[in-house]
């Protein structure tokens, strides 16, 4: 076992949406390299509670990189320094003894802060409700084998469908755009035959809801793709644009 580390953390504390927040300094000791980043925060919280202080609130659930609940900006990078890794899957072996780490919430107008590192991503659900589906009622489906889909297309659709809706793309984008999220959602349907009938209206509705929620526009910076834990491709945004354009004309 490698020896335990001491880390110097600056963590965003904010009691609620209305009260302004600030960075507070904490020292956490006895950090094992085998811990995950969130387990390191668990340990800090345990120590805070024992000292009678209020623990730091942050969201997590699956802790295996699939539910999209966690989301922290670590040293300025959404989900931290490891490529294609959510912060719950980031392990402390990537840090060294004595490191200083700044931890902040997602920051975007459309993601208001709830408390400390917890934000409200309800805007994503509203975008999906505006058209992110195929209109098929339960029981109305034909036999699954009736639709042939090439392996290539199924794989591409799966690449886009891998999005976990964490919002890192929004947090990383200087415009706080949700284009990668929406592009991925539209693409997984656009790449499949089942998604064709509603393709244009789906693009139109989801994009207009995205605008209504206060997300910024996309100016092809690419920060979103760089931080995406599921490596969703910028090409999904290009597809979204084409579909939107086709819908307009």
């Amino acid at each position: 076992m490698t020896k335990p580390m001491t880390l110097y953390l600056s963590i965003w504390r904010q009691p609620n949406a209305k009260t302004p927040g600030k960075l507070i300094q904490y020292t956490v000791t006895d950090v094992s390299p085998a811990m995950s980043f969130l387990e390191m925060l668990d340990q800090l919280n345990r120590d805070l509670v024992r000292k009678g202080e209020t623990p730091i609130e942050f969201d997590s659930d699956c802790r295996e990189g699939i539910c999209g609940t966690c989301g922290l900006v670590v040293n300025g990078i959404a989900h931290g320094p490891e490529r294609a890794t959510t912060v719950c899957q980031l392990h402390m072996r990537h840090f060294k003894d004595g490191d200083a780490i700044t931890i902040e919430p997602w920051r975007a107008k459309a993601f208001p802060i709830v408390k400390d590192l917890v934000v409200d991503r309800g805007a994503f659900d509203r975008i999906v409700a505006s058209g992110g589906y195929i209109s098929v009622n339960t029981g109305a489906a034909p036999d699954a084998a009736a639709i042939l889909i090439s392996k290539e297309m199924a794989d591409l659709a799966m690449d886009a469908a891998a999005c976990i809706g964490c919002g890192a793309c929004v947090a990383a984008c200087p415009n706080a755009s949700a284009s990668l999220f929406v592009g991925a959602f539209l693409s997984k349907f656009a790449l499949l035959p089942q998604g064709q009938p509603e393709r244009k209206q789906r693009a139109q509705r989801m994009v207009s809801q995205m605008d209504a929620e206060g997300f910024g526009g996309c100016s092809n910076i690419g920060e979103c793709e760089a931080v995406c834990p599921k490596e969703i491709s910028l090409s999904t945004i290009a597809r979204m644009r084409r579909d939107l354009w086709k819908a307009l004309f």
Partner: protein
Amino acid sequence: MTLDAKIPSGPIQDMWDKHKFEMKLVNPANKRKYTIIVVGTGLAGASAAASLGELGYNVKTFCIQDSPRRAHSIAAQGGINAAKNYQNDGDSIWRLFYDTVKGGDYRSREANVYRLAQISVNIIDQCVAQGVPFAREYGGLLSNRSFGGAQVSRTFYARGQTGQQLLLGAYSALQRQVDAKTVTLYPRREMLDLVVIGGKARGIVVRNLINGQMESYAGDAVIIATGGYGTAYYLSTNAVNSNATAIWRCHKRGAYFANPCYTQIHPTCIPVSGQHQSKLTLMSEGLRNDGRVWVPQPKGDKRRPSEIPEAERDYYLERRYPSFGNLVPRDVASRNAKAVCDEGRGVGETGLAVYLDFADAIKRLGEKTIDEKYGNLFDMYERITGENPWDVPMRIYPAMHYTMGGLWVDYNLMSTIPGLHVLGEANFSDHGANRLGASALMQGLADGYFVIPYTIGDYLAGTSLEKVATDHVEFKRVASEVQADIARMLSIKGAKTVGEFHRTLGGMLWDYVGMARNEKGLKHALEAIPRLREEFWQNMMVPGRAEDLNKSLEMAGRVADYMEIAELMARDALHRAESCGGHFREESQTADGEAQRDDKHFSYVAAWEYNGLNNPPVLHKEPLLFENVKLSQRSYK
């Protein structure tokens, strides 16, 4: 009260069709006048809420997470079973039915399992139509893999993210109904109690997790789809917010709890790395299709795996179970891993691990194929352990994973409280004493898409319901009880964190109600758990306030419930003096160490009735009759 499972009469193949025909229907124009409360947005809850919304009911749906899409179902990796027989390898509804009854070690209800197998085929159709990107063959057909406990290829999958894709399908269907205004979403709400009026489930009390306020919701029926209680063990493969609170509080209001000791310990998880561990990560069972499980032959062999020659390796599953090999069911695989580690042949720093080796498969199938099949799982393993499974075999060990027990329901998925329906992992109905891989997703979606939309209509059409609103005294009374509990937890200001108590409790369950159980250990647990519970209520330390986002407080409430459910699990395990499936009583084994059932005395569902915290619960038995499958000693040799 005598338990009536309401199993339709007649041949098993016709039961469901006949039952559907005989059910009372709600007039389409009247459906919107009924409010249905759905708690939980996993596969079971989301599919139910969406389908009921489509039918025109007024649905209110609740979850703990900030979005319904984040329910724990999202984490399921391996796949979903269906008797499509697309591979022409001899599968059929009958075979899926048979495999599931056998896999459950003959402790499930035949009628329910048969219906599940029938419906399985519709689920795949539904999901494909929704745009779920299942894996495909080059010719465009759906691809299948095989899973533990089956000798046919009937598992449909979407890479290693099947649960995610199925849940996103159900979530999209749900959001479509939100848009249509038939469904209202209430995220970040935790159900803390059930409101029963006139003997019927009429509403719930929830805590708004953002501002801590108590909120009450009234309805004509309540559906609980809140998942299993595996997190009682502290370390498990479940998400950290998975909990037993909703089902436990329903139990305390009168819903019987069935087979609480039937829990599943999954054989292929990443071993514990230290005290800091907050959860365990599953490596999909699909890996056992190509990975070979082994340990060194000699005890205490500290050589690196690459230095151990073929002849000194023990591929113990292939050796003991030549016909199923590495694909034996989970309970068998887990027990065998424990046995070889107990013999001192485990590997890794702690000695609590066995190898899962892909070297042969890589040689046989090539890197490209293995990468396509398991690449993301290999990456995940490396991210967590820092070891590369392309070079060294994975180390795996069993971990708590799934709970077959749950609230007792009849064939209509209704509990012993009229109007309270229970779906998905939260009920006990289909998996007996051991669940087969890829069958939980199937059951959750069967319950939600295809069973409850029918059976709830029958309930509503056949019941007279007085008008009830949240200003009813009963809502006020329940809300104030819940509030008093919260105030009490905050006022204790003791010396131990809730996490410490949870870890201690989890350790007890793992040691005494885990992979192997015996009378002495269970009796010990039945003394130790209440003692721990007493200490918990005197010495817990919960920071912060009630009127605020406070995850420590949320956790305290859940652990309070684990403290009670744990005792019932131990009690049930003690009373069931036979071994069956995941419930292995050391006193009851065959000569070669397999689980030995005692059909004469234990062929029943144990349904427990709550009788106050300081009184023993009352046991009710639902006899299990096997008319279609012949009971036999389960063998995978």
